[in-house]
């Protein structure tokens, strides 16, 4: 009996003493994980995001660490490619993301572990649009974003800075969330003057149908940051 114990103890000691093989153990540990890019993207339900989600694992000095394992996780239905991988030589790891089949917001979590095995996480928020929000985005691209999006591209110069009252970006939830849906629809349909605001916001009512304006309102709610929280009474669809 004693001999058996001794053999087991020897085997255990040998096992502990061996250098862990790279395939089995995490070869490098970071002190922090930060998001680099890919935050706040939007796509259709179940669609792939345009840009990959990129994270960086840093040491205590803030320098990227190569070879740290990062795992991506999210609600069911979200597909990461790759779902888990070691960081590259610059300490970064990118993954392409296919959102789940339901519309709404998705929180993507990237996890790595520090030396003590404590998980370090960074979260990315992404949005999957339903039909109405997709329609709203397309209409917004045609009619709204020339003024409401301050960014210019080579193909399109923004008109944002040419207006005397700067229009609000649609993601400006702090300003737009408190506006009720009825008022939002009134401003789009009847122009800024409907609520005593700037006439530079023109009335889109006969140009866009009521359902188009509903779609724009749904899109504005969907991209709000901070997120829009609906309040009040609901009625079932007919």
């Amino acid at each position, binding site marked *: 009996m004693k001999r058996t114990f001794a053999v087991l103890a020897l085997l255990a000691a040998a096992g502990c003493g061996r250098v862990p093989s790279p395939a089995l153990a995490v070869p490098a540990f970071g002190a922090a994980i930060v998001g680099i890019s890919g935050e706040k993207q939007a796509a259709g339900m*179940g669609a792939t995001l345009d840009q990959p989600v990129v994270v960086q694992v840093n040491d205590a000095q803030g320098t990227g660490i190569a070879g740290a394992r990062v795992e991506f996780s999210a609600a069911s239905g979200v597909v990461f490619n790759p779902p888990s991988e070691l960081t590259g030589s610059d300490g970064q790891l990118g993954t392409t993301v296919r959102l789940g089949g339901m519309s709404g917001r998705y929180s993507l979590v990237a996890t790595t572990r520090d030396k003590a095995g404590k998980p370090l996480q960074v979260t990315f928020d992404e949005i999957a649009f339903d039909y109405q929000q997709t329609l709203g985005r397309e209409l917004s691209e045609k009619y709204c974003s020339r003024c409401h999006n301050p960014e210019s591209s080579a193909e399109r110069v923004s008109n944002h800075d040419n207006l005397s009252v700067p229009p609000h970006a649609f993601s400006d939830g702090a300003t737009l969330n408190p506006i009720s849906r009825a008022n939002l629809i009134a401003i789009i349909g009847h122009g800024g003057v409907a609520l005593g605001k700037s006439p530079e916001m*023109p009335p889109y009512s*006969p140009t866009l149908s009521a359902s188009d304006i509903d779609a724009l309102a749904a899109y504005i709610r969907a991209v709000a940051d901070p997120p829009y929280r609906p309040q009040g009474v609901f009625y079932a669809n007919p």
Partner: protein
Amino acid sequence: MSPWKIIRSACLSLFGDSARAFGSLSVVLLLLLAIVPAKDHFREWLRYQHEYQRLIRNRSDGVSLARRFQGGVQQIWLPELGVVDRCTTCHVAQKEVSLAGVMTQPFRPHPPIPHSLTEFGCVMCHRGQGAATTVEEAHSSTKSWEQPILPARYVESSCGQCHERPLAGTPQLNAGRDMLARYGCVHCHKVTSPEGRTMTATDDPPSLKHIAAKTTREWLYAWIMNPQAYAATATMPNFQLSVGEARDISAFLVGQSTPYLADGDLKTPPVPAKDDTAALQQGSSVYGESFCASCHAMQNAAGLMVGGNLGPELTRIGSKVKPEWLAEWVRNPKVYDPDTAMPHYRFEGKDIGLAMGFLESKTDPDFLANVHLDAATPAQIAHGKALVVERGCAACHDINGIAHQENFAPELTAVGSLPLAKIVFAPGMPHTLPDYISAKIRKPRSFGSALKMPQFTFPDAQVDALVTALLAQTSRARTLPAALRIPAAPPSTYQPAGRAGKLMTDMRCFSCHAINGRGGDMAPDLTWEGSSVQRSWLVNFLKRPNTLRPALIRRMPKFNVTDEEANVLADYIMTVYQTPAFDSGEIDASKFGAADSAHGKDLYYGKYACNSCHILDPNKDKGYIGPTLTQAGLRLNAAWIFHWLKNAQALRPGTLELNWNMDDDDARAITAFLMQQKAASKQGASQ
């Protein structure tokens, strides 16, 4: 005790006499009768309905939710659509908007769509087995049911079953259908709509009948080996040819080529020397002023692609075409290709030389550095011809001695309903139709190295778009009631008549402008142009186009037309392109008074804030979206402005200008104000 004895004694104790037998049989009968209610009790859908009731019990709106909840099997039956859907048995909260925050299925309400669930059912859009009442049978592919639930990313394909016309809310489907035409898929694969209209390609592959006049065999070889190595934006796919195959095909293509000009017709203009930087600069100006970049892309010094995609990319054009061909092409492209979309610019000889010098300087010395071809043997040329036939080159290109190859590849008209039993899946891939189509697009040769389908390089989003467009091609679409169908706008064969018509064809107005449903969407629709503008302005504009819309980078080029040609065009446009909605002469601008225009100015800057989009006073206004109005009084017709202000969408559907629905007095006053705007012409000055 033997087993036999045990059974015997058990039988005796259960059925030994009539009373025992009666008792035992009664128990068996009771058990049998209990099976049905027990089975019913453990049904999946009942479990979900109980779960739903627990979910809503503690909500503040639980009472009203419970009142609307209907237990038992639910069914949507639409005989004319062939729909028997029991999905709402488990998906109980389809219409409950207040549950929008619930992220667990089957209790999510349906996102808002323009159709009623009770009129269209579920499987029309989502596929799956509608009549099934178990999760597995409803969603998956089973022995008796092939079509599983359609993954959410392809769901726009279902809209395409009825909607042939592009829908604003289905960008992915629209993009996929555009790709089928733009990447020439429909040259080889026939795709027909339920109306029987065959989809046509928009990529316009060039004729190869005179190819040796245009380029060298070396360039052809490198191009067919890998078109994307020459131009990343090339629409021609990679046919994955071997070195020998490319050598023989290039030999055949050069061999079959015939001259397109008699020898004496070549008039190569003086081309500036390669080190003449001043001339290169001037050539670059010709390229810029002619707005070549409206259609052609070119990589700039920073590596960014600048320009449109109507014509081929020109980053390495100097490594591709022969100088004498380029000279003739810039002079008049229709001599080489009568059907090209490129306009005839009517350049002077000097400008042709300058443009050529600039384009010839766009070379890539590395592109052909490693291409060394020996003179072709007759055997190689014969093999090249066989390969050209085998690979279906003539499905896209005109080639001497080879008939156009019709229906070269399988028809895709009903590919969205392709039975799984007919599909040979590659090992290891999921056995579903969307996965099959997507794998065929991504790596066609993974299904067999002898297959002819070439390799495209599309990012994920584009593959998804193509799969969406193809999945819309269902056989179900053909059985739906005709009343549901929204057919695409019929193609227009409109052709203006007479000398003006010939001029418009020569300058390829339809490449950018649409008239009566025919033409491109790069520039404004000219269907009612005669009602819109003043003749004197039009003549000047045709001769020396100036910038009307500062925000656009695609602009009208100068076509170097003569006075006489400009007048012929203006006469035709002013006479023929008149809207029936109003009479061009109905408002006499000279009758407006100072009070009218003063009121109009107040409305322009105040009530309607027109200055947020239009520049009228360049020193004050900054709006950058609509056309500049500094010369509105010289350019536009008063009646047009009036009706435009009332409802621009009726005059030019889809224009960015709103339907202002303005009352007559306001519209009149603003018209008066705009007709006063007659700033000195900047035409002909720097654009």
